[in-house]
């Protein structure tokens, strides 16, 4: 197993006003990630799908130890990295990279494209000088930025959004990482170009044997690339399974609602939908019992009292719902 995450939690303290500090001792927390477990195999594409506020981005940052977990365990390539110091974790960074959503913000505008991609090679002492340059040119070619010599010397300002994201991918992949966290890598890319970016990421995965933790709000994108998908709601995984199983046989009412809300390019529309009331509640006041019960069209009395555990319903397909026991 490449990555094993067990009962991971991240609580952010809520800043109190002056009056609140006087009146109450009780700390309040945003329970952004509230006890999730999952694992990723070598070379696997595993997607975390959820709405804003589901905790998916926080999970990605926790896994890479870019922020400190409140509790839980993260094991990467058999090594427990949960409480490693910054110094201890540094040599592992070449094996765990990240691609961000915004290709305009993630690149240094004063750094030439070639230098930006070379940077990780120098930091991790993988190569330098001519050798590093050769590796960067080869990588530019692989990500479709040709002729590579021209792109090596250009600045991000002269590139389109799609080209910038290719640079970000080249930079993340040049160390041939074992795990890449990709946080909404195509949501700011023009629709006509998205598939080519996704295809590029999948090609590089095949070539380097990297695994992806793919974070997205878009189930259609997740379906296109993932081996397995986990659906998150308010800091918890409510359903996880192989992509095919999840789409053929969605079990959690939230998964069903999410699936039925995705626009499908079919005119006449307005298929039969599972309508949900309201919006995702605040992660400060998480509902008791099943955290989805306040919006669930199928909730019954048990749901507000007892939190359901993830149970295996068919091989490799887990759901946390009292309807499936």
């Amino acid at each position: 197993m490449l990555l094993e995450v067990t009962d991971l939690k991240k609580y952010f303290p809520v800043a109190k006003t002056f009056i609140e500090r006087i009146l109450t001792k009780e700390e309040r927390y945003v329970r952004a990630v509230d006890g999730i477990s999952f694992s990723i195999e070598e070379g696997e594409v595993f997607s975390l799908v959820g709405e804003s506020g589901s905790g998916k981005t926080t999970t990605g940052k926790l896994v890479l130890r870019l922020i400190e977990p409140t509790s839980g365990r993260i094991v990467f390539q058999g090594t427990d990295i949960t409480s490693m110091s910054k110094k201890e974790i540094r040599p592992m960074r070449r094996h765990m990279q990240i691609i961000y959503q915004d290709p305009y913000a993630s690149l240094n505008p004063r750094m030439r494209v070639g230098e930006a991609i070379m940077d990780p090679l120098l930091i991790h002492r993988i190569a330098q000088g001519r050798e590093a340059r050769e590796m960067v040119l080869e990588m530019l070619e692989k990500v479709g930025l040709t002729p590579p010599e021209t792109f090596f010397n250009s600045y991000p300002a002269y590139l389109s959004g799609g080209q910038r994201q290719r640079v970000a991918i080249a930079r993340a992949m040049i160390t041939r990482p074992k795990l890449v966290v990709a946080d909404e890598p195509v949501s700011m890319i023009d629709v006509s170009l998205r598939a080519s970016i996704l295809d590029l990421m999948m090609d590089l995965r095949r070539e380097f044997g990297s695994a992806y933790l793919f974070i997205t709000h878009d189930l259609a994108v997740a379906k296109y690339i993932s081996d397995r998908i986990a659906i998150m709601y308010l800091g918890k995984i409510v359903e996880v399974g192989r992509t095919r199983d999840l789409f053929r046989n969605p079990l959690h009412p939230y998964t069903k609602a999410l699936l039925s809300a995705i626009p499908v390019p079919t005119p006449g529309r307005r298929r039969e939908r599972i309508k949900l009331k309201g919006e995702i509640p605040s992660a400060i006041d998480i509902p008791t019992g099943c955290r989805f019960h306040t919006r669930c069209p199928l909730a019954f009395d048990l749901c507000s009292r007892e939190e359901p555990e993830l149970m295996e319903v068919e091989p490799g397909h887990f759901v946390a719902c009292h309807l499936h026991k």
Partner: protein
Amino acid sequence: MLLEVDDLHVHYFTKRGVVRAVEGVSFNLDEAEILGIVGESGSGKSTLGLAIMNLVPSPGRIVSGSIRLNGKEITRMSEKELRRIRGKEVAMVFQDPMTSLDPLMRIGDQIVETILAHEDMTKEEAKRRAMELLEEVGISRDRFNDYPHQLSGGMRQRVMIAMAVSLNPKLIIADEPTTALDVIVQDQIMDLFTELRDEHGVAIILISHDLALELEVSDRIGVMYAGWLMELSKAEDLMKRPLNPYARELLKAIPNVELEDQKLISIPGSPPDLHSPPPGCRFHPRCPDAKPVCSREEPPTKVVDGRLVKCWLYG
């Protein structure tokens, strides 16, 4: 005919030169119709929406063409006449409601103010109407005294829609109204738009980058690329048999969750910089069907089977 746009040209006069953001766009819109305008970044779809309200920001302006709303020419109206029309005959909903809502004013009061600016009503009557409107868009009356920051993104967009319909306009222009929202909330907002159309006969121009969403919701769809209207067809026709190669290739690039093992195909290259668009057809560098003429001359817009298409394949 509710709206007639004829050979509209909108340019931005920037330091780097003239950007022809909308060029030669023509279409009609009926009452109670939902017209989708779909395009990528830089397609001119947002500029087109603003032009219909005569709200193109400086350094841009409408350089030629005509926009008739209920037979009245919008491009030649005075600022005073325009103010009367905006809100009352045509209203706009933007992507980010926070840019249009006053953060220091209670949401109910903002709706009341809009109503009182245009309608001859007492404050009490306006308040009653505002409460009805909030309820109509799915917000409880007790939120009347809330400030915008107390509402979620979806609720703020509902408030914007309540304000947009407060003066009973015949036309609502919605520019990426759900792009910042999650899909479940997007679905709720789309229900609201279709209700407005079905129950009040409001026509809606829905501007979006999301072709799947447009196909689901719209009656007809205009596909824009680099300032041009490439095709205007019924949603069904566009889906079954797109005429313009750009529309056809775009359909191949969007995922459909209901299909198994779908292979998506991107369009090579990227949309042009409108400071220096390619000569001839603006899509020709990316077009799989490009012929020699396409790189030399602008294609004409033709009517084919009652659909508009701008492409040399039909020249």
